[in-house]
């Protein structure tokens, strides 16, 4: 999930009696699966929650360029380099659609970018882990994008129109990325002993952080209940995590890679795999800023933004001159 630990604004789900007439009409539309569009009335808390969620998702796409970009200059073949460049370009494009969707809620891209840069807004914890060998690029596509897709597929049906439409486009590209990632790691799993070692090393480091992408259990969460009632969130974190594990285990077996969980086993009765929870204290450390790469990632984004100021100012000044000249001519 590219947006995680989104705190839902408000005090929890209201009963119909507690709702105002406007709120009732709004909830009726959601219940009837009618999309909410930017000009429609919406509760302030719905708007605030969506800004947080879409903003965090957009920031994740942007920061996510860094761990993948880390390998573009070292990609082992021209084809792999081209595939990775195309993928990272897609991610930046996703960021763009999502910032546009957030703008329809009344925040500018610059405003929420500033909030990312000064730490008021977060991005997915997964991008605070490093990419250390080439198989990591396969693992990011296969596991990280795989986990993201689990969450994003249901979000295609989310209640806010612009978010839902952005998600439909994004999902198409993400599925493609996941297949490419799997292909890259498969090639290594079938390769030399050193390549197999890289693939297993990537698996060992990315398995638990991928499970963390769904966020801690939220079965009992009041916040989650409100987001689900608003159809901003469709499934619980645990449902999605289970689905991800069930899908991924046979794929890992096919590759001959070992999932670093001795307690992982098929549970006939449940019809699902049983698996170990990730270390949630590590997750909260990463969220608080203590992951292996938090400081570097934010520093890189801040540097790009600060170094680029003269470029943005220059292009803006030029556009104003052109506009001025055009007006003067008319």
């Amino acid at each position, binding site marked *: 999930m590219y947006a995680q630990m989104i705190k839902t604004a408000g005090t929890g789900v209201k009963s119909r009696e507690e709702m105002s007439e406007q709120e009732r009409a709004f909830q009726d539309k959601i219940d009837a699966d009618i999309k909410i569009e930017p000009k429609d009335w919406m509760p302030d808390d719905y708007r605030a929650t969506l800004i947080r969620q879409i903003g965090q998702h957009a920031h994740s796409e942007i920061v996510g360029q860094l761990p993948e970009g880390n390998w573009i200059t070292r990609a082992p073949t*021209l084809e792999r380099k081209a595939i990775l460049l195309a993928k990272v370009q897609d991610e930046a494009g996703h960021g763009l659609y999502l910032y546009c969707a957030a703008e329809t809620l009344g925040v500018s891209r610059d405003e929420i970018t500033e909030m990312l840069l000064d730490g008021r807004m977060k991005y997915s914890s997964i991008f605070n882990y490093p990419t250390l060998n080439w198989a990591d690029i396969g693992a990011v596509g296969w596991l990280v994008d795989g986990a993201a897709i689990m969450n994003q597929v249901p979000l295609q049906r989310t209640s806010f129109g612009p978010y839902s439409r952005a998600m439909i486009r994004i999902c198409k590209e993400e599925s493609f990325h996941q297949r490419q990632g799997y292909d890259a790691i498969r*090639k290594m799993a079938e390769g030399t002993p050193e390549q197999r070692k890289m693939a297993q090393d990537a698996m060992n480091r990315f398995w638990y952080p991928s499970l963390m992408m769904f966020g801690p259990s939220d079965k009992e969460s009041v916040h989650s209940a409100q987001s689900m009632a608003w159809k901003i969130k469709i499934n619980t974190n645990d449902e999605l995590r289970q689905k991800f594990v069930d899908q991924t285990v046979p794929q890992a077996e096919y590759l001959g890679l070992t999932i670093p969980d001795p307690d992982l086993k098929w549970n006939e009765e449940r019809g699902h795999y049983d698996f170990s929870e990730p270390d949630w204290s590590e997750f909260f450390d990463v969220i608080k800023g203590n992951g292996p790469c938090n400081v570097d990632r934010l520093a890189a984004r801040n540097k790009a933004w600060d170094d680029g100021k003269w470029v943005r100012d220059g292009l803006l*000044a030029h556009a104003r001159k052109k506009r001025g000249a055009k007006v003067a001519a008319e």
Partner: protein
Amino acid sequence: MTRDEAFLQFLLRMGDNTLILGHRVSEWCGHAPVLEEDIALANTALDLIGQTQMWLSLAGEIDGGKSADDLAFLRDAWDFRNVLLVEVPNGDFGRTLMRQFLFDAWHSIMLGRLMTSSDERVAAIAAKASKEVTYHLERSSDTVVGLGDGTEESHARMQEALDYLWPYVGEMFVSDDVDAEMVAAGIASNPSDLREEYDALVGRVLAEATLTTPESRFAHKGGRDGRMHTEHLGHLLTQMQWLQRAYPGATW
């Protein structure tokens, strides 16, 4: 020099230019001044790497059945035939875009000529690449104009970038025996014949950008014939070729 030997050198010059510039541009990934530029830079790099695959595949055919990857990842610096312009480090965004513009202008004129090459394979690659490069040139020209004629700071930075890069321009128009052989075979034009059109194009854009074209015609040379690259190329190759060198024979 046989015609095949000359043809190989010509193809390496085309493919190494796009390979090395594509690599340089891809270094920007995630660090551009604004999201649209991140997308555009990745897209440019992607086009250039795609063109590299076409040029170096054909070069590999001529060179005894090597693959494009063999040529990209297993040659040392002295075998590279790119002009020095494309291997100079990115510098700030202004220098990157100025370098792009100075190259795109040459590239678009060159590809336009190659579309009528007597060698059908060359003509086909040029036709495909030309569509992409027309767009590269449009974008880099617009950016050079926008920043040249932007704020005082952006103007100063673009002038500085132009002054730094200008001595690397001349090498794109030097003609040697390889070029003479290509002209004789009807495969490619003489590079020196492109200069007039280039100067007109570049002059027009730089004037609109309110930048001053340096008067000196001094040219750093040595990339196209491999006589002497810059110190920067070795570092670039160290990074680009690392996996192939560290794990020989592996397929990826």
